[in-house]
């Protein structure tokens, strides 16, 4: 086993890891050695080619097919230099005040988070896309919402030089999306931080990590790791876990920290989501342009759902339509005429939903759909259908309806359809990409895993800086809030450096 030594090691390079790496990188000027260990590969610009299965295999954990323990939901998260910031759409939302207030974490104020969030929004070029670059898939959503008097809003996005490939979720082929792979990690590297890819941290102990560097497989995308393939034992005075809301709790669990941290892995939420698809009579611009430009969140509190525009690729679309056979194929053949809406349910932290580990130490997500989340998906589906029809769609695919195809003539029957709707796990395709919780912040180890600055209770050398810090659902797209929290972690470590290092 090869041995290495650093002052600070960061596990993971996504919104949390990339941000904390940049925030600590000034310490390199004082001679400190900092490394980021990233499990995934670092791709060259020309390797982002938009091929659906190829890119999913290269950039997502399990090719985008990570399943909950009972197999009823797919969890999609990135595994690459830049983590999930490589594969999101760049939607950049400020943390909602009502949610942060409800979290009720001592020493965590909404004003402070918002101030930090705005700093990163400026750094990552967050802005509203110009109207002439917005496609009809999005414009029809706006038209339908306005006709129904819904409060439709435009997403700020972190893009620069977008050509409208629509391929954001497969990694931008034009390097327009300003994720940590484009901004924070390169900044950190310029300041002297070392980023090691294809390096999976297997376990951690008192100021040590055990890691495994994988060889590049034949035909695989991405650069070789800067370390030789093999096993490593790494000493670090400070360890920061930013492996995401699934892998960070799992790493702590398999490393034996559950005894002192009873809340470890608990409080997992993920915004379970359902893709709604409608067919128009004429072709619309849908697979060109930024896919996610608008949203409606006025139903988040009252009906537990948020609607967002979206546009997916052939396989993901096929998988997201319920059923099979001729009816399924009919929608697929209408691809250039399809409009899509993503329904996200606002799930809440509860006692059941959690991250655990399997016999080999692998992460296992135990998840049951809550009654409110199911209601949110059904109400969101019905509301989406109203929007589709108001925008002129001729047919809507309704995964929760008994007969999944609804014609425009049935618009008056939507409440009846809602009343008879059935959410059957395993039959209704549900996926999620906003994994949160598992190492929630709070005052004491009895009710939380870290303090408000990401420090693990009772372990001054160990920090968490990712979405697992959320004590409950954020109810919006989470990455800017993750960056704001990671910035606090970096600040605390800088302030305490003399004592910790």
């Amino acid at each position, binding site marked *: 086993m090869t041995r290495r030594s650093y002052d600070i090691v960061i596990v993971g390079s996504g919104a949390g890891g990339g941000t904390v790496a940049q925030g600590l990188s000034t310490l390199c000027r004082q001679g400190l050695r900092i490394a980021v260990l990233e499990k995934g590969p670092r791709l060259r610009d020309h390797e*982002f*080619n*938009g*091929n*659906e*299965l190829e890119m999913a*295999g290269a950039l997502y954990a*399990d*090719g985008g*097919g990570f399943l909950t323990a*009972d*197999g*009823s939901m797919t969890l999609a998260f990135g595994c690459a230099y830049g983590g999930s910031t490589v594969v999101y759409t760049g939607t950049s939302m400020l943390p909602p005040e009502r949610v942060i207030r409800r979290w009720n974490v001592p020493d965590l104020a909404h004003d402070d988070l918002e101030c930090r969030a705005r700093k990163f929004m400026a750094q990552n070029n967050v802005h509203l896309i110009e109207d002439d*670059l917005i496609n009809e898939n999005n414009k029809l959503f706006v038209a339908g919402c306005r006709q129904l008097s819904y409060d439709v809003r435009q997403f700020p996005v972190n893009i620069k030089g*977008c*050509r*409208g*490939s*629509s*391929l954001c979720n497969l990694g931008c*082929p*034009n390097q327009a999306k300003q994720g940590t792979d484009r901004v924070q990690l390169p900044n950190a590297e310029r300041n002297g931080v070392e980023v090691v890819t294809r390096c999976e941290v297997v376990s951690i102990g008192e100021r040590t990590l055990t890691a495994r560097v994988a060889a590049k497989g034949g035909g695989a995308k991405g650069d070789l790791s800067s370390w030789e393939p093999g096993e490593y034992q790494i000493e670090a005075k400070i360890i920061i876990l930013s492996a995401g809301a699934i892998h960070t709790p799992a790493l702590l669990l398999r490393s034996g920290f559950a005894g002192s941290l009873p809340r470890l892995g608990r409080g997992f939420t993920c915004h379970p989501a359902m893709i709604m698809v409608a067919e128009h009579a004429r*072709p619309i*611009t849908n*697979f*060109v*342009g930024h896919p996610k430009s608008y949203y409606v969140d006025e139903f988040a509190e009252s009906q537990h759902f948020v609607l967002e525009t979206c546009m997916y*690729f*052939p*396989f993901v*679309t*096929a*998988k997201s339509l319920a*059923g*099979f*056979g*001729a009816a*399924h*194929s009919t929608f*697929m*053949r209408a*691809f*250039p005429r399809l409009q899509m809406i993503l329904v996200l349910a606002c799930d809440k932290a509860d006692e059941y939903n959690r991250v655990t580990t399997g016999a080999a130490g692998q992460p296992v997500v135990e998840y049951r759909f809550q009654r409110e989340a199911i209601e949110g998906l059904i109400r969101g589906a019905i509301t989406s259908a109203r929007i589709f029809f108001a925008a002129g769609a001729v047919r809507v695919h309704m995964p929760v309806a008994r007969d999944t195809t609804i014609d425009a003539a049935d618009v008056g029957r939507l409440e009846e359809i809602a009343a008879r709707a059935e959410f*059957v*796990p*395993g*039959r209704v*395709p549900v996926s999620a990409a906003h994994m949160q919780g598992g190492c929630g912040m709070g005052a004491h180890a009895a009710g939380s895993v870290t303090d408000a600055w990401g420090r693990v209770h009772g372990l001054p050398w160990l920090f968490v800086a990712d979405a697992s810090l959320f004590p409950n659902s954020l109810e919006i797209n989470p990455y800017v809030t993750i960056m704001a929290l990671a910035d606090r972690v970096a600040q605390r470590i800088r302030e305490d450096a003399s004592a910790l290092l």
Partner: protein
Amino acid sequence: MPLDPDPALFRAVVTTIVPEAAALDDAGWREFDGVVEALLGARPESLKRQLRFFLRGIQWLPVIRYGRRFTSLSSESRARVLAHLQNDPIQKIRIGFWGLRTIVLAGYYGRPAAARAIGYAASPRGWEALR
């Protein structure tokens, strides 16, 4: 054949889930099988065993109701068998079918030719490619 030694069984399931797959030529099927193999290659052996077991179940379960194996049924009866699995009261059976269906859809729609056939033409050049 990536999932089952009997290619006729897997293809009968595939063409029931995606009727257009019946028009695939040998090269198309080779491409289909290649996508499925690549998809399953990274998956645990236990999952592949479960899928093979599930597939064999699809072949023999219809004998109880129809007196014939899945591959000997009409396309309408095949669809009824799969619909029954999809709606089965036992969640594990529904999930098993969902997994098999996912692999089939990946094999078919994961091919660039299928994307072209349904009119999907996203390009890294975005708006410029449209003009």
